């Protein structure tokens, strides 16, 4: 029997196709692509959700790692596509609201989530589940700032000239802090303009990332910054000399949420993932390592961690979500002012 080259190639192609197709079908039904941050967040998802909770269900989790801004851009760019690339998208509450108003997300069918009933009532949304949350606080170095600050306005004290630092990526919350110090509110950041320019003349420092700011706090280049309480907890754990105070002007909440894009390829797997994110053991792990608070009623925290990352009852009572509508309308102006006037 003579086997021609063409026959061999044909046979190989058929064999490859028959071997590959079931694999492809399996991959499509048992995979979920999660658009998330990398670093600690991505790693904790892997350790506490992907491997222990999703793998036993036979669902493979693929992380699409990027910062929030590129992920938002991707969701917007894919809005019209029949099949999107993300099964689940993780974003902050402000960003998630923006994506929802751009019609990029599904309205969640809560009956498909076994854990829906345990979500803290204040954090429930129709288009996303809350994963973890924290509050905006003022972090300070107790060795240098000997009188503990009480408000955002303390950043303008001339004795801290050149010692206030900002993370560039948190331009929106930095502007919020300035607005509140100037008598503004959750729905009016205009007073921030004068306050930020004042701070600029007081030689405030701007760092390109949270990590660069952490290095500056560690090296005692700067002594004070508005930051998430959870970050402060992580940095304290890393040996940076820091304390925090919930500013008396107001407690701004940040919730990191997860949602299902409208064009998610496999919604069953996506819902299974959201359910896993709400499991108490996964929530506790994020609190322990990253200092974020659980968003479900039945996750218990070890007392020593709870003491460090929780808010007092009074602070908890005044914790408020940002004014999403205002932020969506003014986001461009806030960014423009930050870039052109404050940094310019």
């Amino acid at each position: 029997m003579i086997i021609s080259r063409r026959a061999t190639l044909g046979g190989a192609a058929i064999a490859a196709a028959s071997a590959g197709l079931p694999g492809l079908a399996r991959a499509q039904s048992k995979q979920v692509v999660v658009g998330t941050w990398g670093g600690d967040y991505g790693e904790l998802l892997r350790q506490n959700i992907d491997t222990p909770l999703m793998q036993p269900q036979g669902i493979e989790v693929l992380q699409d790692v990027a910062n929030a801004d590129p992920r938002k851009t991707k969701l917007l760019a894919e809005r019209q596509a029949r099949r999107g690339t993300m099964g689940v998208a993780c974003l902050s509450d402000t960003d998630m609201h923006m994506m929802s108003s751009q019609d990029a997300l599904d309205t969640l069918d809560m009956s498909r989530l076994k854990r829906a009933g345990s979500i803290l009532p204040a954090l429930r949304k129709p288009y996303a589940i809350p994963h973890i949350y924290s509050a905006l606080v003022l972090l300070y170095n107790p060795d240098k700032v000997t009188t503990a600050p009480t408000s955002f306005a303390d950043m303008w004290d001339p004795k801290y000239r050149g010692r206030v630092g900002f993370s560039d990526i948190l331009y929106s919350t930095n502007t919020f802090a300035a607005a509140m110090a100037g008598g503004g509110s959750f729905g009016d950041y205009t007073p921030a303009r004068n306050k930020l320019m004042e701070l600029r003349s007081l030689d405030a420092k701007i760092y390109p990332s949270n990590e660069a700011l952490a290095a500056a706090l560690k090296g005692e280049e700067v002594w004070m910054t508005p930051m998430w309480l959870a970050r402060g907890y992580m940095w304290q754990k890393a040996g940076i000399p820091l304390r925090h105070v919930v500013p008396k002007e107001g407690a701004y909440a940040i919730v990191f949420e997860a949602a299902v894009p409208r064009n998610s390829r496999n919604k069953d797997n996506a819902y299974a993932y959201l359910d896993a994110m709400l499991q108490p053991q996964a929530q506790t792990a994020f609190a322990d390592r990253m200092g974020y608070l659980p968003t479900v009623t039945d996750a218990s925290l070890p007392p020593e961690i709870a003491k460090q990352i929780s808010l007092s009852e009074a602070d908890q009572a005044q914790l408020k979500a940002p004014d999403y509508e205002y932020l969506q309308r003014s986001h461009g102006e806030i960014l423009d002012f930050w870039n052109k006037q404050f940094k310019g």
Partner: protein
Amino acid sequence: MAALVLPAGVLVLLLLVAPMLLLFRISLNEFSPTQMMVEATTAANYFRAVQDPYYRQVLVTTLAVATGSTLLTLGLGFPTAYWLARMQGRWKSFATIVVMFPLLVGNVVRAAGWLALLGNGGAINAALLGLGVNAAPLPLLYNTGAVVAGIVAVVLPYMILTLSAVIEGIPRQAEEAASNLGASPLTVFRRVVLPLALPGVIAGSVLVFVLCMNTYASAVLLGGPQFKMMAPAVYDQFVRGNNWPFGAALAFILLGFTLVLTVVGSAVLGRCYRR
């Protein structure tokens, strides 16, 4: 023969021309904070970019950094290219690989290296503080100098390899003849080598200038948050501001300036060459 161009032509048409046309169309739309983009046919985004002093300053910074980096690269690259072109034997291949070495490392990784070298806790400052030369770290990072140094390190191989290929084509005898007739080394360079190497100077400078104008990683990582060039400004509008129409207009302004300056620069240098 023309058919040979077809595969590359189709690829360019699909992957470059079509997205560019789409981007141009986007640049004529209007931005809305709530709807993101509203279909329109307006040049308002272009007017805004040209009239806004901030973006004019960003463009001026970009042009200054690109021009400065190109001239510095030319100054540093020419002697090396000449030496490489005149090299003989097996060491030449080795030297060529050494010249190309920076291209083997990604832009971001290279910039991370610069961060480790120039940062406040970086190698240089650690050494200066350790030796007691300085009491406080020198601000070596997050300024124009750091960006130019980063860019030059990236683009130098392009200049050297382009120049060296042209200089190799200049007969050694031409230089020897000039020397025999009493020309000093400087005169030989000015009257013989440089005019004959001018096509390489033009090609290398155009290539480097275009790369410098579009610098992103070096500008962001080494320039810091207060340093702005056009490519990061375009990214900012698309990704942080979600303002695609304005970002697209900025991208076309950058493209237009780069194109015009490249064509005019080449024409002026070319005219000098013909003389």
